[in-house]
């Protein structure tokens, strides 16, 4: 039972990061009308930035600022590319997925060639921290606490922005009907760029929590995270923010419990098998698509 509770806590921490990632992905889908498959690669590059700045500085604020800035810059830099793709006549949402897959390939290869000779990097102990609370087998680490707390706070802020501010109203209006939103005078391009900014912040913050929780980064991490993010998004229903919240947490819990009871890389397979079965039974997602 103790193992189960320990893995449940770990799963909630991991799940809250997945929720952040899926929320960013869904926001891109709803507002910018793109499938941003390269988003997890931005998160991994941001993780590498945290690691790199930590080599030179102990100033936490500087480290966080650098990681967040890289994530925001990369996210905003991709905006003109996707805008050009979306404005091409006869091109559908698949084109953004294909282009973002190309971007993911570029990012992954650059990371595997240039950073730390392609080897995974480990974050220093001062960054990850040790255990804070301990009851028998149940141990809560600093990384888990930050991931869980940070994830909840970030999601709450995001949903506040979405449902209680004018900008959020613009996002929802564009998500509902782009043409009608433009008719009532909502600045489409400006709102779209703002969504890239928000996604950049969410990406940088996810990278921060991820680096504290798992304590390492590798060029191949983005591939796994992209797969999980897309899978959660489809299992929940494409563009369904609330569905993504529930399914992200469930994925984190399933994955952690599988790690607790099943050895090696099989634990990852369990999560994918569950998602595959759900997708095969309900191809439209558990909560319905919003696009």
């Amino acid at each position: 039972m103790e193992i189960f509770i320990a893995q449940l806590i770990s799963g909630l921490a991991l799940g809250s990061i997945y929720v952040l990632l899926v929320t960013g992905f869904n926001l891109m889908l709803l507002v910018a009308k793109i499938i941003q498959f390269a988003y997890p690669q931005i998160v991994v590059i941001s993780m590498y930035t945290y690691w790199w700045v930590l080599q030179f500085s102990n100033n936490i604020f500087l480290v966080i600022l650098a990681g967040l800035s890289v994530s925001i810059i990369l996210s905003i830099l991709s905006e003109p590319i996707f805008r050009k793709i979306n404005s091409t006549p006869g091109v559908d949402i698949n084109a953004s997925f294909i282009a973002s897959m190309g971007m993911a390939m570029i990012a992954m290869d650059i990371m595997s060639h240039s950073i730390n000779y392609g080897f995974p990097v480990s974050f220093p102990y001062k960054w990850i921290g040790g255990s804070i609370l301990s009851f028998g087998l149940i141990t809560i680490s600093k990384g888990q606490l930050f991931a869980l707390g940070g994830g909840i706070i970030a999601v709450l802020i995001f949903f506040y922005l979405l449902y209680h501010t004018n900008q959020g109203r613009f996002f929802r209006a564009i998500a509902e009907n782009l043409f009608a939103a433009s008719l009532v005078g909502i600045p489409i391009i400006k709102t779209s760029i703002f969504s890239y900014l928000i996604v950049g912040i969410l990406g940088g913050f996810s990278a921060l929590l991820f680096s504290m929780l798992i304590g390492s980064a590798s060029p191949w991490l983005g591939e796994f995270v992209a797969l999980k993010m897309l899978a959660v998004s489809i299992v929940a229903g494409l563009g369904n923010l609330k569905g993504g919240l529930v399914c992200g947490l469930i994925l984190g819990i399933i994955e952690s419990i599988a790690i607790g009871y099943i050895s090696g890389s099989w634990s990852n397979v369990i999560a994918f098998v569950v998602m595959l079965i759900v997708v095969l039974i309900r191809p439209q997602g558990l909560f319905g698509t919003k696009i």
Partner: protein
Amino acid sequence: MSEVTYYFLGFSAIYVLMGWALYLPYRVGQLHFLIVACMAISAYFGGYAAKEWDWPFVLVLISGILISTVIGFIFSLAIGKAPCFTVVIVGLTSVFIVKTTIENWKLLGGTIGFFHVPSVTNILFIMYFLLIITGFLIYRIDHSRLGRAASVVFVDREVAITLGVDIKKLGMFFQITACAIAGMAGVLDVFLVRSLSPEFFTFSMIGYLMCILFVGGHTTMWGVIPSAFLLQGIPLIFSSNIASWRQVIYGALLVIIILLRPEGMITRKMLWNMKPKVPQQAINK
């Protein structure tokens, strides 16, 4: 024939087959990455059957195709008419599950791989013979009612349904055919290389196949051919320093082609314009 030319021709043929396997379901707007999982399963089955059970090449080939066809059929029952991204995620998760299973299965060599598969004489000749047969069949499908129905589904699903097209059956047909082609490519691959590694069936391979299809052109079956040969030739044309960055080159090509020429290098319109025109005088007569 030098070893480099031998492998260049062999891999190019395999990637043309895989490009066609990706092209077919995309006719109905589905990116069917399950073909990579099918290729891996058939390749491993083929390699094991030939090495351990001494099965002849023809029997291995037929069994490999059958296994992939059955897998394709079972999955198509659920995702025959599913939206593109549902099909994408089914394919991606399947590739990951198959790869992890192979890595953890000692019988198949685990992460180290599988070696010493028996050789087949004239494998290159057999490959190109099968390539021509497959190309002819795809050409016939493309120019049949099925091909026209697929074109309508790609442009507008609602119109296709109104016109009486059974999109589920059509999707199932293309998915099953694609898996069968991938199964064949898997068996041919194992007899070409005579070894297998789970590292071969990764995200990079999916990206490479996407590059072959979309750079060449996804609206006709012909685009895949020059694209597969050109991309396979990159490591041979450039120095090893540049060639080691080929994933960056493939990724950049994918982004550039979507930005500048979304239909790819060879388009249907281009082929239409190349057809010999009937002179105006002949029409007037």
